[in-house]
């Protein structure tokens, strides 16, 4: 049976774990290390942790904190936020991080992705692609936590990152983030159509069935934030993750060879 990766995405802001709506309205949901421990017990496939302050504060990753998190992560761990040199990425790998997620540095300098992939292997290099519709309703790639329009068009940007050496793209739909509207399927379809590397879809997941829809549209893996840290309808903080039985019934059994 074919499986796909189902990945909790966690945001770190001011030292705590937060969850956003459309990359805004950050709400505190707990302590990052504690959350990783809980996700461990739930045997999640992989975890993505993004420090959304690092680039804005022009500082490198918080290595001490990441070490603490990595020591509790017995599943693959991807980290992003503030990585601007190959040495910083290497330090992260030494701490037990499997993949680094780059955004701002890659946008400004695609050759950074090339150099990084050459040194650490492309399978460990993830480029996050944050996409939002602009005022004219056109998809554009944004950076700096969705505040800055890069002017880049998502499909050509994705292709450029793949050509630069990225091993995987993490596609975040800013418009769907935290809204429980389901994934932005047309966007996933457009981008995955030009890629030979895996695309991880993120933004909008509300239920397990949404995962199968994202994969049918071309995603190789799915990520979610709100769905795994809040309990609806009252948005109480509660960490959850679907069981294998549910995933098999509602997702894996519907997958074809893609």
């Amino acid at each position, binding site marked *: *049976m*074919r*499986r*796909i*990766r189902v990945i909790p995405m966690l945001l770190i802001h001011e030292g705590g774990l937060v969850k956003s709506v459309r990359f805004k309205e950050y709400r505190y949901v707990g302590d990052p290390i504690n959350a990783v421990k809980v996700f*461990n017990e739930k*045997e999640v*496939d*992989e975890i993505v942790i993004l420090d959304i302050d690092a680039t804005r504060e022009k500082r490198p990753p918080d290595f001490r904190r990441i070490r603490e998190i*990595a*020591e509790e992560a*017995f*599943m*693959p761990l991807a980290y992003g936020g503030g990585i601007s040199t190959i040495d910083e990425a290497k330090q992260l*790998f*030494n*701490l*037990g991080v*499997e993949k680094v997620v780059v955004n701002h540095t890659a946008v400004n300098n695609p050759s950074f992705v090339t150099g990084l992939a050459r040194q*650490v*292997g492309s*399978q*460990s290099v993830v480029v996050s692609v944050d996409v939002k519709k602009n005022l004219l309703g056109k998809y554009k790639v944004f950076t700096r936590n969705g505040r800055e329009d890069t002017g880049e068009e998502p499909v050509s940007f994705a292709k450029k990152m793949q050509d630069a050496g990225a*091993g*995987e793209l993490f596609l975040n739909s800013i418009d769907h983030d935290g809204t429980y509207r389901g994934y932005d399927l047309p966007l996933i379809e457009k981008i995955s159509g030009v890629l*030979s*590397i*895996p695309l991880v879809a993120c933004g909008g997941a509300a239920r397990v069935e949404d995962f199968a829809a994202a994969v049918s549209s071309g995603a*190789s*893996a799915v990520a979610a934030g709100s769905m795994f840290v809040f309990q609806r309808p009252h948005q109480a903080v509660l960490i959850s993750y679907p069981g*294998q039985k549910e995933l098999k019934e509602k997702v894996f059994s519907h997958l074809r*060879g*893609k």
Partner: protein
Amino acid sequence: MLVIIDYGVGNLASIRNMFKKIGTEALVTNDSAKIRAAEKIVLPGVGAFDHCMTMFNASGLREIVTKKALEERTPTIGICVGLQMLTQGSEEGKEPGLGWIKGQTIRFRQDRLGNLKIPHMGWTSVRSCKSSGLTEGFSEDTRFYFVHSYHVKLDDPQDELIAAEYGMEFTAGIEKDNILGVQFHPEKSHRFGMLLLNNFLKSY
């Protein structure tokens, strides 16, 4: 003492963390005296095959690790590219492998995979091909985390311990006497990785 060979490559912190989680202090070292005294050996490896072989050859540790594995029969497990290094060579590079296991490391063929992508990245179910201490307790739920574009192709099917499927069946684990290897990452495969590493500690 369990020793993780530090030849400058690999996810050593993750492996040490996982052993710590199951109650064993592993020694990460490049010190030949300590390797000489090892009771069990982990040979890690990530990234390009030639890079791993070149680094291992340059580390000056190859001779002692080979002596331990082949003459003293110290239980030795290769992980990921650490497994591939046990073969005679890889399509990925030009460097010869260690050749402790007869076989080659070959690339997944896109024409055999349909629209599955290379690398094979993610969780995949495995099955044990023969009775072994390393796979004791495996069930139909057992799955591991894989990241690889190349896999081992053995000359002798008797050496195959674990099989997995990605478009086609491939060898995910080997066992020949005291030499073991796994293509996946037990150190990142939570409950199942703990089971396997614990088996390595107690059965060998």
